[in-house]
């Protein structure tokens, strides 16, 4: 097995998990989906500099070969921004739950306060 296969397949699995969770009905699951998706996107961006082992972009007179530093710089800020986005979405979800008593993404007022699991029979949720 090659590293390339490991990274590509990991990206694929993370994307699949991210899409599936992003389509769930509860805000927390959507946040998790976004988190998985962000991992995948950051890995993908990073991979656009290709996989290189043992050549960090720390300049040295004696070294001539480095990995591409640009995707790394982009991904570094992307990771931090991802945190900002996740934090904002989580707080948004929290606020909407506190306001409505429901953590359904579409604001359907199915109160979670009544946690009996049979609150609805619609086909969008069960």
């Amino acid at each position: 097995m090659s590293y390339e296969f490991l990274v590509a397949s990991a990206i694929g699995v993370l994307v699949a998990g991210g899409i599936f969770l992003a389509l769930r009905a509860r805000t927390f699951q959507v946040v998790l989906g976004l988190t998985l998706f962000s991992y995948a996107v950051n890995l993908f961006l990073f991979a656009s500099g290709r996989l290189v082992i043992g050549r960090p972009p720390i300049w040295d007179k004696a070294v001539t070969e480095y990995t591409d530093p640009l995707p790394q710089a982009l991904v570094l800020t992307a990771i931090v921004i991802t945190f900002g986005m996740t934090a904002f979405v989580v707080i948004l979800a929290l606020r909407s739950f506190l306001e409505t008593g429901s953590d359904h993404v579409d604001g359907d007022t199915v109160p979670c306060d009544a946690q009996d699991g049979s609150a609805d029979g619609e086909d969008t949720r069960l």
Partner: protein
Amino acid sequence: MAIAMTLLTLVALPFVAALAIALLQDAPRAVHSAIAAGASAGGLLLLASLTASVIAGDVPSASWSWVPSLGLDLTLMVDPLGLMFAGLILGIGLLVVIFAHFYLYAGEATGRFFASLMLFQGAMLGIVIAGNVLLLLVFWEMTSLASFLLIGFWQHKPEARQGARMALAVTGGGGLALIGGMVLLGIAAGSFDLATILERGDVVKASPLYPVLLGLILLGCFTKSAQFPFHFWLPHAMAAPTPVSAYLHSATMVKAGVFLLARLWPVLAGTDAYTLIVTSVGLTTMIVGAAVALFRHDLKSILAYSTISQLGMLVMLLGFSLEAAALAAVLHILNHAAFKAALFMSAGIVEHETGTRDIRRLGGLAKAMPITAAVATLAAASMAGLPPLGGFISKELMLYETPKLALLGVPWLLPVLATLGAAFSVGYSLRLAVHLFFGSPREAEPFARAHDPGIGMWAAPAFLTVLAVLLGLIPMLLAGPLVGAVTAAVTGAPAPEFDLALWHGVNLALILSMVAVAAGVLLLWQHKRLLGLWESAALPDAKRMFEATFAFADTWVRKAIVATHTPSLQRMLLASFAVIILLIVDGMQAGGAFTGTRALLPASAPAIIAWALLIAATAAVVNDSRNRLRVLIYVSVIGLVISLAFVQFSAPDLALTQISVEVVTILLLLLALNLLPKEPPLLSSASRKWRDGALAITGGVLIGGIAWAMLTRDPGPSIAAYHLANSKSGGGGTNVVNVILVDFRAFDTFGEIIVLGIAGLGIFALLDTTARGAAGARLRGWREDMPHSPERHPMMLVAASRIILPLTLTVGIFLFLRGHNQPGGGFIAALVVAIAFLVQYLAAGFDWSDARKRFGEHQLIGWGILAAMATGLGSFIFGAPFLTSTFDYFSLPLIGKFELASAMAFDTGVFLTVFGAVTLALAQLSHIAQRAARAYSARNDAEDAA
């Protein structure tokens, strides 16, 4: 150069005055009106300094490049047409300011009033001296906005708000059409420069675009100048204070459409389509407006419809496409400005002194207010076109031209209809004067109150009426050279021979004029009977039609939005993902090998184990997403594996960032989860899961496949080599990633820290207000739903966290300082330091930590961004572009040689902002969590006691 400054000052003066008045909002009214009057008078003086040369045929102009790629230049020019309008705008503006100073009641927002008025003056002035059609459009839109503000000045009155909205909808909508028309005009003429366009009339008229651009420009002109069938907004705009009606809705803004028709006369006029449309629209407006004016009872409403009618006459004259008719239009613009502004101000005086504008309740006012009566009656006589006043001459000129044009092929049609319109004009003008000032009072109360105002109020209308009289008595002396020069500027050819005088001998025009006067007298005599007929006829109500149209559009737009933007995130996301997947599938049609030729790196056994962990953890997250606490552990496994991958693939900075972000994210999710439901009862139906699962797997396979195809190919040419070569020599650092962040691409980073700062503040805003309303109630009703340690702050954790704090801070400082040369830097250091503080919150509680905290996160975010920006701006001092960095080596005893780079200051900004945003988010979250917990324990204690 002097000319350029004069023009620039001329157009800037009103805007500066508007700003000054707005800043001095609380100053007494005299300050506001003095600034406004000073600016208008100053503008008049500047204009006067140009007048002699402009009349002599010179066109002072100046141009500054603004957006060259669009053809938008700041070009100003004063030709005779612009000069005349600028004179009207500033002159009547000055009179209106004086009038308004006395007209507005005590306690009204004079600052807002005069600031809006000056804003309008500047915009209007801009229209008439703009030398670039795109620039003209900018000012054109500004007049619509200023008019909106002024009509709605009395915000508490519903009719003011409705009138303002209607005016904005009609003139703004016409403005949109005008934008299209002007851009097409620029394309057809090959330039947006007005002087150039005016020389290319033949090119434009021959262009295939001509019919379209003509239609669009006319739409803009007709809406602005209240031409039928867009006339209905003007009467509703009368909800504005009377000075505004006098200024905007009679003398200046409504003439912008007429101005533009005159301005573009050489380019547009002369074709059959132009002559037919413009003449018939103007004629219809003239007759309809005059007829309606005859049967209105509100003074301002009568004046509004008479304005519509007079504007119709101007448009019609320009539509003739005859030079002599253009001359008549020019003269009538002057006449109309004089008598109509005077009449509006007189109406304002009558309302001010009697408390009503209803002509049915007034009458015989000449006895109570003789000065006002004299002023208004003379102005009305000019409006009726009676000799020896200015209105008579321009109406004669108009009637003289009508037989020259066979409208619809019928030679007598135009003279007859024009005479009919003139007769109505005589009718409503006489009715206004006679019913208002003569006869006996119809009601006692308003008459008893009536008296002439102070000179401050009647001076302005009296001055205008004197002008209206002089325009009749000595027209050649007063206006001859100006009218000649303006007509030449309008037509783009030398003005025709003309002689402005009251007596030209007996000709057809005189006969038609006499017929009109006689018919007008007849109308006044039979007014009561005609009024009965008029009121029994079921006439359409323009306002109701307008509102029905609006409601119709509103309903359908709403339906369209609901149909296309389903109010469901789930459905929207599903559609988005599906579309993206389809696009990828479509892109794959291009073909090519799936696997590239790049040599692959064989994976080590530990790497395969880590990969398996990641896959398993992802599966667990998806499978177990209901058990939210456990899911967080799986997520952190994924984050850890990704950090390890970064270590393996030569990205130490990324590994450090990922691992510290991971810690912060998990802390945040834990805190949020404390308040969210932990095990939600509801999950999706099986069929829905299968559908989403299929979509997810397709997406995963496709993206993974793309990643594979990319990873197995060699990269194309990259700018990495440049970054690597210049990092040390140009940026002064050996950590190329950090140098890119703080130097090569510092502007990106600057944007990113601003985004992060905004996210932090947004989170604060979302959480800070949770104490109120439904959220507050729910928060207070929160109950512990998980077993908690009996010790809220375990001793071991507290002690350990306090020992760790200085150590972590040291690590943070170390990472920051070495960041330019070794893995580290502002981002990572900020996250590490933030973690050190968050551990304190976690261990010792919010109150304890918050009380000992000596910094405010809000300020940190602000100072961070300011520090980064100051570093960037600092390079301007040395004449270098924004964010150019510099560095040098220094040496100190004991420490030795070390480096200082300006990029370090930038990195400090990054550090402060990231640290501020992260701690703000988490501290605020733990704050409300603590509040909820305290409410819970207080309630428990109360229950225990009971």
